[in-house]
């Protein structure tokens, strides 16, 4: 048994994990453990920008950013956490610039900013230029810059180590167990503190912008260890995924003047959100697209619409949106300056996840009880700053602000706390799980996964209804049963990705069921969660977060927790 001892372990090497590592490794012995090479993390695919009220091109303030975030969340976000995020966004963006992030620049040489969905001036009067960007590869630049700084600082990495279990002893976090992919051997990381920064779970859906590796590992591992998950019913569908493929076309395309059109060529968003039009928040735009399709106004009567950039200056598109131009040319054979882009909503972002406080410490109930030594940040976490619907650019703000805060908390705590003992036979659960998966079964991982993804996209996406959700829960239970006896053709130990995928599938199935169950329970429509049978928001009964615990048989048990409201009382959401 290989045992490594560290003060703290950070699981995941995207923006949140690397930001935390930069903080924590200043004063403690920290390891970053990731199933990927850090530069492969999904932060690198973020395109349009990171929101911060720098006011480089016009007046802006963090209060406006806070208001937009709260309103965008359909009033479900915790306002104390949102306030912290929007205030600290400004200094963290400057910090990124100081680290060397190559932002695009204004003529005066300041960080360039552009409009984005739901970001407004003076509490909703009109769009504001708040998204700080580096062409349409802002996430790539963030990921590269943070990794560069980690090299500079000598951060310790365990690349291609797949974390499969959380260790708990005497009520405290004691480390993690990981599979070294190159050898298939188990490793125990014994530590005082563990932060999960493992990203999202978009691969539970068929049409998604998410990487093949976004399988909810961190949420899944903690859920299996008795930690609840929060607000799982809120999953964001980004309005503009490339038709059938789900690849993201940034909202910045609309920020730069792109227009959505139906088969009649009509700019239909004018009917839905007359003030912000195409720059309304994502939940509203995705629903509008669905509505157009339902009423027969999809292109060729099919389930997609057009994103039209043809009226914009071709040079500006090539300069400001070079990557999406490349995607559209590569995957569709289309020149976006001459032809409209076929788009449809794509599963994009989990607003829900591992509940934390604003210091990224994991809280395990409705009374703010902290699990000692456990932290989470980024998409896998739920602070909650996004509530029922995240605004564009705020995911990057979230990972940087709360990654940093979490790294500081981790450092502070490990300096003070003793190392808890390892539990007896720490690798037992992981070993038994692997033995079970490697045993001779009859079910193919890819078959179960394909069926789960199809059902979730069909029944638990933009529009939901009790009947469909009940059906999908039943199917998921059957699929979980089938997943108990998988057949793996790879019998080797080295780089057994099939085994890794079998474990990822276990997480996805349970998270999908938690999502569908929470969606069925919430009898209202709020943000990204839209119920055809309950089309109105119901603050009297549902202005609260949901929690879900895993029961011993793998099925979910539901609860709730209050929302923190400070500055902005809930109002009807109009744009």
């Amino acid at each position, binding site marked *: 048994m290989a045992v490594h001892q560290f003060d703290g372990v950070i699981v995941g090497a995207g923006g949140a994990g690397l930001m935390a590592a930069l903080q924590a490794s200043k004063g403690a012995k920290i390891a970053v453990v990731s199933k*990927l090479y850090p530069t492969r993390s999904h932060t690198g695919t973020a395109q349009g920008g990171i929101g911060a009220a720098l006011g480089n091109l016009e007046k802006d303030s963090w209060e406006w950013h806070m208001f937009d975030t709260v309103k965008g969340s359909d009033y479900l976000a915790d306002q104390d956490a949102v306030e912290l995020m929007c205030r600290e966004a400004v200094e963290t963006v400057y910090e990124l610039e100081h680290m*060397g992030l190559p932002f*695009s620049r204004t003529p005066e040489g300041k960080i360039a900013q552009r409009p984005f969905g739901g970001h407004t001036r003076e509490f909703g009067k009109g769009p504001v230029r708040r998204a700080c960007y580096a062409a349409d590869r802002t996430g790539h630049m963030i990921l590269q810059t943070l990794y560069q700084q980690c090299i500079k600082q000598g951060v310790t990495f365990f690349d291609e180590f797949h974390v499969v279990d959380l260790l708990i002893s005497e009520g405290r976090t004691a480390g993690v167990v990981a599979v070294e992919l190159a050898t298939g051997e188990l490793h125990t990381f014994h530590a005082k503190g563990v932060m999960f920064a493992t990203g999202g779970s978009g691969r539970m859906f068929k049409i998604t912008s998410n990487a093949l590796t976004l399988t909810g590992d961190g949420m899944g591992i903690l859920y299996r260890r008795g930690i609840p998950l929060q607000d799982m019913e809120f999953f964001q569908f980004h309005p503009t995924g490339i038709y059938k493929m789900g690849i993201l076309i940034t909202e910045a395309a609309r920020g730069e003047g792109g227009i959505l059109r139906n088969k009649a060529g009509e700019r239909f968003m004018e009917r839905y959100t007359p003030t912000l039009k195409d720059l309304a928040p994502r939940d509203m735009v995705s629903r509008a697209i669905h509505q157009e399709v339902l009423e027969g106004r999809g292109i060729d009567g099919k389930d997609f619409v057009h994103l039209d950039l043809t009226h914009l200056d071709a040079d500006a598109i090539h300069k400001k949106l070079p990557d999406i131009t490349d995607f559209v040319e590569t995957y569709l054979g289309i020149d976006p300056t001459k032809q409209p882009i076929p788009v449809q909503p794509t599963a994009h972002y989990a607003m829900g996840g591992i509940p934390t406080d604003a210091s990224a410490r994991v809280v395990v109930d409705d009374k703010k009880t902290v699990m000692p030594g456990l932290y989470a940040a980024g998409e896998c976490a739920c602070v909650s700053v996004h509530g029922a619907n995240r605004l564009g650019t705020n995911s990057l703000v979230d990972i940087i602000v709360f990654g940093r805060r979490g790294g500081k908390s981790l450092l502070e705590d490990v300096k003070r706390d003793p190392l808890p003992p390892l539990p007896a036979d720490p690798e037992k659960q992981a070993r038994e799980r692997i033995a079970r998966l490697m045993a001779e079964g009859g079910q193919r991982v890819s078959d179960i996964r394909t069926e789960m993804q199809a059902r979730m996209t069909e029944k638990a996406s933009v529009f939901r209804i009790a009947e469909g959700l009940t059906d999908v829960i039943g199917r998921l239970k059957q699929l979980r049963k089938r997943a108990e006896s998988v057949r793996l053709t790879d*019998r080797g130990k080295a*780089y057994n990705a099939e085994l890794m995928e079998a474990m990822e599938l276990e997480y996805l199935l349970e998270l999908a069921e938690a999502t569908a169950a929470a969606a069925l329970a919430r009898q209202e429509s709020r943000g990204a969660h839209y119920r055809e049978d309950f089309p109105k928001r119901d603050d009297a009964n549902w202005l609260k977060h949901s929690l879900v615990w895993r029961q011993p048989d793998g099925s979910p048990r539901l609860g709730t927790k209050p929302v923190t409201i400070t500055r902005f009382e809930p109002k009807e959401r109009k744009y």
Partner: protein
Amino acid sequence: MDVRFEILRFDPARDAKPHWEDYTVELEPTDRVLDGLEKIKGERDGSIGYRRSCAHGVCGSDAMKINGRNRLACKVLIRSVRQPIRIEPMMGFTVHKDLLVDMEPFFKKYRSIRPYLIEASERPDAERLQSPENREKFDDTTKCILCGACTTSCPSFWADPNYVGPAAIVQAHRFIFDSRDEGKEERLKILNEREGVWACRTVFNCVDACPRGIQVTRAIGEVKQALTRGKVD
């Protein structure tokens, strides 16, 4: 349509040497080569080793040799390649399993050029200023995703594995031509050594291989020029 693949398989635990295996799967012409690999792995043989993540050309995981040229499997469509589609690992690094190569020597080269902003001056309260013209000078090389396609297509690297290689030079260029960086001299010194930029013979394979369209040879040329003239710009 039925699509035929030939994949170079090698499991060092079992095989004395690599061998080709054939697979035929049904795909759409608009599918990616990666979709083909995923289908083969999911339905035919789960033991095929390769890396992949984002599946749209941004993360840099799935660089491999496709019909003789280094490409990202997620950026090549079935309709654009001749069949059978022959897939091999990138050349020049140790093969761990099938298409999986040891990337550590690649990242070691990357780390050798000190790939981070070197600051001597105090940080200001707000952002440092940089004119759009100065930002433009290193725009092309900020696009690098460290996939390894350029370095493993380079004859100079095949001949001398110690050559720092095009990817590391691209990364160095990104800092050398950044007006905010204050470590140009030490980086140029590293690249002036025997295994540095002078090993480049301007074969241009790297330009063909780069999935991000970076003008790699031009970037290397700009670094050579900076060395010759003893200054940047």
